[in-house]
C-alpha cells in the first residue's frame, strides 16, 4: 500500500474520535458553558467500551455503555457547575482527571489485551472505483454514521428552531431567560450530549480504530478536540474540516516514520500538538485584529 492509499484509507477513522468529541463540545460551548473534561470523558468511554466488547463481543453494547457512562460523568460536571455554581474550569479539569483515573482503574486487568474491530463495509459500485474505491470509500459502519450525524447536526444547528434556541442561550442567557426559555435545562441537555459524544469517541478509539487496551491510549486527543472547537470557530463544517486535517497529520506522522524520514519519532509525534498550538495562536491573533 502506498503512502497516499494509506492516508486515503485511514484518515476518516483517525479523525473520527476527534470529530465526535469536538462536535459534542461545540454544542456545549454554544450554550455558553465550557467543559474541559473531554480527555477524561473519552478515556472512561474507551475503557468501558473495551471491557464491554471484550466480554460480550458486541460493539453495540460497548458503544451504548460508553455513551451512558460518559454522560453520567458529564452530568457530574453539570451538577457542579449549573447546580452548585462551581467554577467551570476547575470542575471541568476535575472531572477530566476523574475520568482518566477511573479508566486506568477499570482497565488495569485488561492492559494489552486485544479484541476484534469492526469490519469495513464493501459497498457495491462505490468500492469498485479505482484508487478511492477500496480506500476512502471502504469504511466501517461508524464512519458512515458519523458523517450522517455531522450533516444532521449542521442541519439542526443552522436550520431549526432548536439550533436557534441553542445559539440564543449561548449568546445572552439572561435575555433567553427573560423571554421564558429554561436556560438551565437546555445547558444540562447540551452537557449530556457532549458527554455522550465523548463516550462514543473514546469507544471508537479503543474498540475500532486500535482495538486494544492500553492505559493512556486517548493520548491527548481530548485536548486536541477542545482546540478544534476554537479552530473551527464553533461552526460544524469547519470543526469537521479541522478534525480531518488532524487525522491526516497523525497518519502522516506514521507514514513518515515508516518511510524512514530522518527526524526522530518524538519530533514527528509532537507534530499534531505543535500544529494545534500554532493554529490557536493564528486564530486568536486574527480575532484581535493583529493579522
Amino acid at each position, binding site marked *: 500500500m502506498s503512502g497516499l492509499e494509506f492516508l486515503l484509507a485511514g484518515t476518516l477513522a483517525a479523525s473520527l474520535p476527534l470529530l465526535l468529541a469536538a462536535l459534542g463540545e461545540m454544542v456545549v460551548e454554544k450554550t455558553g458553558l465550557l467543559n474541559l473534561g473531554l480527555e477524561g470523558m473519552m478515556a472512561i468511554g474507551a475503557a468501558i467500551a473495551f471491557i464491554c466488547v471484550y466480554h460480550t463481543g458486541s460493539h453495540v453494547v460497548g458503544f451504548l455503555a460508553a455513551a451512558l457512562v460518559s454522560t453520567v460523568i458529564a452530568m457530574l460536571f453539570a451538577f457542579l457547575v449549573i447546580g452548585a455554581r462551581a467554577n467551570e474550569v476547575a470542575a471541568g479539569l476535575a472531572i477530566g482527571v476523574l475520568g482518566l483515573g477511573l479508566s486506568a482503574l477499570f482497565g488495569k486487568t485488561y492492559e494489552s489485551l486485544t479484541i476484534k474491530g469492526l469490519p469495513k463495509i464493501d459497498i457495491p459500485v462505490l468500492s469498485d472505483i479505482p484508487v478511492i474505491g477500496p480506500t476512502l470509500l471502504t469504511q466501517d459502519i461508524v464512519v458512515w454514521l458519523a458523517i450522517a450525524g455531522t450533516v444532521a447536526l449542521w442541519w439542526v444547528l443552522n436550520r431549526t*428552531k432548536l439550533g*436557534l*434556541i441553542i*445559539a*440564543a442561550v449561548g*449568546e*445572552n442567557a*439572561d*435575555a*433567553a431567560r*427573560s*423571554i*421564558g*426559555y429554561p436556560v438551565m435545562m437546555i445547558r444540562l441537555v447540551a452537557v449530556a450530549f457532549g458527554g455522550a459524544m465523548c463516550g462514543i469517541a473514546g469507544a471508537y478509539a479503543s474498540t475500532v480504530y486500535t482495538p486494544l487496551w492500553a492505559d493512556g491510549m486517548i493520548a491527548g486527543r481530548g485536548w486536541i478536540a477542545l482546540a478544534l472547537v476554537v479552530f473551527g470557530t464553533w461552526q460544524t463544517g469547519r470543526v469537521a474540516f479541522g478534525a480531518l486535517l488532524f487525522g491526516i497529520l497523525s497518519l502522516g506522522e506514521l507514514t513518515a516514520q515508516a518511510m524512514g524520514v530522518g527526524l526522530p519519532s518524538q519530533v514527528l509525534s509532537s507534530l499534531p500538538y505543535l500544529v494545534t498550538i500554532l493554529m490557536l495562536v493564528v486564530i486568536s491573533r486574527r*480575532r*484581535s*485584529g493583529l493579522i
Partner: protein
Amino acid sequence: MSQPALLRLSKVSKRYGTVQANHHIDLEVHSGSIHAVLGENGAGKSTLMKLIYGVEQPDSGHIYWNGQEVHLARPSDAQALGIGMVFQHFSLFETLSVVQNVSLMIPGKPAELAQKITGLGDQFGLSVDPHAMVHRLSVGERQRVEIIRCLLLNPKLLILDEPTSVLPPQSVRRLFETLRKLQAEGMAILFISHKLDEIRELCDTASVLRGGEVTGRVDPREHDARSLAQLMIGREMPNVAHAAPRPPGEERLRLNALSHPRASRFGTALDGIDLKLRSGEIIGIAGISGNGQQELAALISGETRAHEPGMIEIMGKKVGHLGPMARRKLGFAFVPEERLGRGAVPEMSLADNSLLTAHSRNMLSRGFIKRAAERAFTRECIQAFDVRTPGPDAEAGAMSGGNLQKFILGREIMLNPDVMLVSQPTWGVDIGAATAIRRRLLDMRDQGCAILVFSEEMDELFEICSKLHVLHKGHLSPALDAAETTPQEIGRYMIGAET
C-alpha cells in the same frame, strides 16, 4: 369606576436581604391608559416591574388581573395573561436576524412572521427590516424590534422600562406616536421613567415611587416638572446655578486625525477624529453608546495604544504610544463608564481602591503600602464627596452605583488633574448625587482643569459643557457651541442625518 382595573396590586412587598425594595405598593392600571411609574434610581421601579412580569415573586401582597387574583411564577405566566415587557437593556440576540429573534418567542414560519413584522411596522410606525441582523440595527430600531415582538403576543398591558433613555430625540417622538396609537387601540401601558417632561407629555396617570413606597398618585399633566421632582426626591430640586466660564486657557488634550480599526466584530472603528480641549473648559461628547465611545475612551486613557504617538497629545506631549500610567503622570485622570471592573475593583476595599490610582500621593514607601496614608486619603475622599458608606474598609462592590461614582470621581479629583476624561458621569445615579457630581465638574473647570465628558444624557451636556461634539458610527462631528446649538440639531448628528 365601575369596571375593575386591568391590573391591580394590593400591598405588594419585596425584600432583598436587608433592602426593602418594595413596601406595601398599591397600583391600578386601566385599559387605554398610559400610566407612568416615576422614581429615582433605587426607588424600586425595576423590582416592581419584575414582580408584575413574573421574574420575581412578591413576599406578600396580592396581584389582580381583571379582578381575579393571579400568581405569576415566571414570565411566561405573565405573557399568557397578556403582559408584555420591553426591557431597558434589550433582550435581543445580536448574532441573529430580526425574524429569528422574533421566532424565538412567537411560533410561526419565518416568512409569515416577516410579513407580520412588516404589517405591524406599517400600522404603528415601527418600520424595521425583518431580515436585518440585529447587531447592524440602531438602538431605536432594536427597540422597535422589542416592541413588535411584544405586540405579536397581543398583550393587553405593555410595560416599557426607561424606553427613552437610549434614544435620540427624533426617535423619542416616534416612540410616543406609536404608544399613543396603541393607547387608542385600548392597550394599557406602564411607562417607567425618571424623565419628568416626557411623563407630563405622554402619561395620564403617574404613580411616584420613593424608597420602595408609593408617595403620590397624580395626573402628571396638572403638575409642573418641579413639583413632580419634589414628589420624586422628597425635597426641593437642588439648583446648579454656576458662574459663567472664564475664557479657556492653553491646550491640554488634542486628538489629531485619530483613527483606529475596530477590535471585535461588534466594535466600532474610529475615523479621523480631531479634537482640541483647553484648560478651564468642558467639552461634551454626545451620542448613543456603542458608536465608538468605549473605543475612544480607551484610546485617550491609554488602555488601547494609538497607531502613531502624534495622534494623541496630552499637555503638549505626544502620548499615543504611552500606557495609562505614563499618561496619568502627565496630569491625566480618567473616570470610566464601567464603575465595577474599570473604575474600581469590586472585591477590594475603598482604601485599596484609592491606592490603585492615587499611589503616587505618598502612599508607598520602598514598594510597601503605607496603610495609614491610604486610609487617610480615602477618609478625606469619603467626607469631601459625601460618599455614604461605613468607612474606608467597605467593599467597593457592595456600594450603590451613585455612591461608588462619587467615590471614584472624588478619588480622581483629589489627584488635582490637569486633564480629565469622565465617561457617563451620572449613569444610574440618583438626581441628588447627579447634581452634586455636575457641580463638582464645574468647580474643577473653574479651577482650570480641562474636562472631556462622554454622556448619553443630553440635558446634562447642555448644562455643563461649553462645546459639544457628537460621536456617530466612529465619526466625530465638528464642535458645536452649546449656547447656539439645539437638542434637535444634536439629535440629527446622533442619527447620522448630519455629519
